[in-house]
């Protein structure tokens, strides 16, 4: 038998499918039995078939700074990750709690700033955040909700608990891969979907559309997705979501503000737009409001938004809640606004802006992961145990030059999932990004993007840095 399941060894890590060597977790028994029963070479064959489907679908992403043809096929592994119903229940309620609290926080920061006045968060931290936008002070987004679409990164470590690693409350990407991974898996393992009760993810586009519709008072608002264009790394997703929601995908040049209202340029003249799901950064939304040096964006958009003439999802300014230094305060934020204990804990975090924390970080660089507070996608990250002496020294210098811009966390032993390597399975580290929508109510997509670090021993799961994806099966 090609796959040799009995030899798969979870080693010292928490394995999502195995309790210990030779002992599958209850939810995984069926899957592993099925995989083990496949004839020699069959799993590899199905992996290749899945990759062909992906290639023909044109499921690709671009990597910044790489020149070879802009696009790469999105790396995919056909062994799914399984999340049991009870685990999911906890995740679901934890994320709903978190997103409510973060929204109350953002609204407070841009209005009364009670949380700063009460000394729960140092005001200094807010004002020094690159994601805090002065022009957003006093904004009144529809129903006081700022962040409608969030992707929260979770990790599971040796104790078997899920922790929140990062909040992505600006323009989280990846949900297209969740939808497409499921399509590919249904073609690859139809028999497993018959045997398992996997919760469907296909409802996401219509949920998202409902969320966007909820931002307008009109019975039938015109909704568009605003993309930076085909060279953006997530263009594939923008296009897919537009297609699945039946709305138009626009670039900034397609939009123009006329008499205070946002219009799109069409073959029959300009037409009004009511709701914009924007996938471009705050900085490039409107050169009049944010970056006067920018040629990108829609001049006048912000003013139109302030006057309630167009709705934006997410609202500009939400980035203040996913600044990695402010992340450290989210448990306090939950406590402050909701008077509840966080259902999903944070990962312990050292703020380099704090003198005592900084000293600790600089003395333990070889054990810690250092992250820039305002970066995403794995950029600006230093993994101490895997870094060279030179890299650690460079990192120390950067921290000392701009302590506010760095945080550090212990290097976590991320859980692993068996992953096809050549003709056998090996454990690879994963995280999980579920997606949360906040329209008239909060809902969490039952599933999410399981990112897997395909390189042996690697802890970096970002697709821009050698990561791949797996389908995530939430059982009902």
């Amino acid at each position: 038998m090609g796959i040799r399941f009995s030899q798969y060894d979870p080693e010292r890590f928490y394995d999502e499918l195995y309790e210990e060597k030779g002992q599958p977790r209850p939810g995984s028994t069926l899957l592993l039995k099925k995989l083990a029963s496949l004839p020699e070479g069959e799993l590899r064959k199905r992996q290749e078939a899945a990759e062909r489907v992906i290639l023909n679908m044109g499921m690709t992403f671009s990597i910044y700074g790489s020149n070879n043809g802009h696009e790469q096929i999105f790396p995919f592994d056909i062994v799914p990750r399984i999340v049991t119903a009870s685990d999911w229940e906890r995740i679901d309620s934890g994320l709903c709690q978190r997103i409510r609290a973060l929204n109350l926080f953002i609204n407070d920061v841009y209005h009364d700033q009670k949380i700063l006045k009460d000394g729960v968060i140092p005001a200094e931290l807010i004002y020094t955040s690159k994601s805090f936008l002065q022009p957003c002070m006093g904004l009144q987004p529809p129903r006081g909700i700022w962040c409608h679409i969030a992707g929260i990164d979770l990790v599971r470590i040796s104790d078997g608990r899920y922790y929140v690693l990062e909040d992505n409350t600006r323009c989280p990407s990846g949900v297209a891969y969740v939808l497409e991974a499921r399509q590919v898996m249904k073609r690859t393992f139809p028999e497993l979907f018959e045997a398992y009760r996997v919760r469907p993810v296909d409802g996401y586009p219509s949920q998202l559309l409902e969320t966007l519709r909820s931002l307008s008072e009109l019975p039938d608002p015109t909704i568009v997705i605003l993309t930076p264009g085909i060279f953006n790394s997530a263009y594939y997703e923008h296009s897919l979501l537009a297609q699945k929601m039946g709305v138009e995908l626009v670039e900034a040049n397609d939009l123009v503000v006329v008499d205070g209202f946002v219009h799109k340029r069409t073959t029959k003249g300009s037409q009004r737009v009511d709701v914009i799901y924007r996938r471009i950064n705050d900085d490039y939304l409107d050169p009049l409001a944010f970056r006067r040096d920018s040629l990108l964006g829609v001049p006048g958009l912000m003013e139109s938004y302030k006057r309630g003439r167009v709705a934006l999802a997410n609202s500009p300014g939400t980035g203040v809640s996913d600044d990695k230094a402010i992340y450290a305060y989210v448990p306090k934020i939950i406590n402050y606004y909701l008077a509840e204990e966080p259902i999903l804990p944070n990962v312990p975090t050292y703020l380099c802006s704090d003198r005592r924390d900084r000293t600790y970080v600089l003395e333990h660089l070889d054990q810690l992961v250092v992250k820039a507070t305002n970066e995403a996608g794995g950029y600006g990250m230093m993994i101490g145990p895997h870094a060279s002496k030179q890299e650690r020294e460079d990192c120390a210098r950067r921290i000392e030059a701009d302590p506010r811009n760095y945080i550090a966390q212990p290097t976590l032993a991320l859980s692993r999932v068996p992953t096809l390597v050549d003709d056998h399975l090996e454990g690879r580290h994963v995280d999980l990004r579920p997606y949360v929508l906040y329209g008239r109510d909060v809902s969490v997509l039952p599933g999410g993007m399981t990112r897997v670090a395909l390189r042996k021993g690697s802890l970096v799961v970002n697709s821009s840095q050698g990561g791949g994806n797996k389908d995530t099966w939430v059982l009902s």
Partner: protein
Amino acid sequence: MLSRVASSIYWLNRYIERAENYARFIEVNLNMTLDLPRGTMEQWEPLVFTTGDHESFAGRYGKPTKETVIQFLLADPANPNSILSCLVAARENARSVREVISSDMWEQVNRFYLMVRDALSNGWSRQSLHTFLTEVKANSHLFLGITDATMSHGEGWHFARLGRLLERADKTSRILDVKYFMLLPTVDEVGTPFDIIQWSALLKSASALEMYYKRFGRIAPDDVTAFLILDSTFPRAIRYCLIKSEDSLHAISGSEHGAYQNHAEKRLGRLRAELDFGDLEDCLTGGLHEFLDRFQGQINFVGDAICETFFAPRPIHIHSTIVGAEAQ
């Protein structure tokens, strides 16, 4: 429909059609030269003239040979009209309107592109060339069929057809022009069996041989010319292309036939009327090549008007609409 989207759909279809016609160009030349009497030089220069890219060719390759001409038309990434470049451009356009076209259409463009890229990455040989050209035509036909069968025949579809048929009208005129540039061994050979063989090779390259036979029965140079220019029902004939392009243009703008609302309709309407009320003699007076040349110029003119009317972002003055005006 967004102007940018309309433009991308239009160009997507022009590029696919262009790729197909470049395959036909090479085919017509292969067919004609294969039948040349022994001892006659193969002629590849005519093909470069036909495409109108002779200056760009001469600048980089010098004297045309079979290898360089085919390389130039097939796989030269620096030639924006090579089959490879067309597919790259078609795919980029398709990628920017993926949410508007059907996913079947996108997957076909993507497969078409991957086929061309992979086939050309190893160079081409005499044997592989024929298969490759056939594949290019088949993939283009498949794309057309998928478009017709999976995309609503609304505004976007009309832009697609408009792009495809204007491109085809232009390219059919150029295929016809190959014969003008293609020298016969001697002047005496005009009208000889050998000349006839070339004309039927030309029809074959336009996939027109069978339909031509049904109408005229035997090969005669004038009939071939009349068929490819003036037939109103053969889908690769120039007049057919203009009739259907005009239908699409009017479907887009909503104006009635026989009237016009914009420059594009005006120019296309006049051009079509010229063929509707013209005959072969009108085309041949002053020379066929000159007629075709002028026709190609006018088609470009129509294309420009379409861009101006529907695609170009109209200048909008934003001064009155920005922050200041109302805040005071």
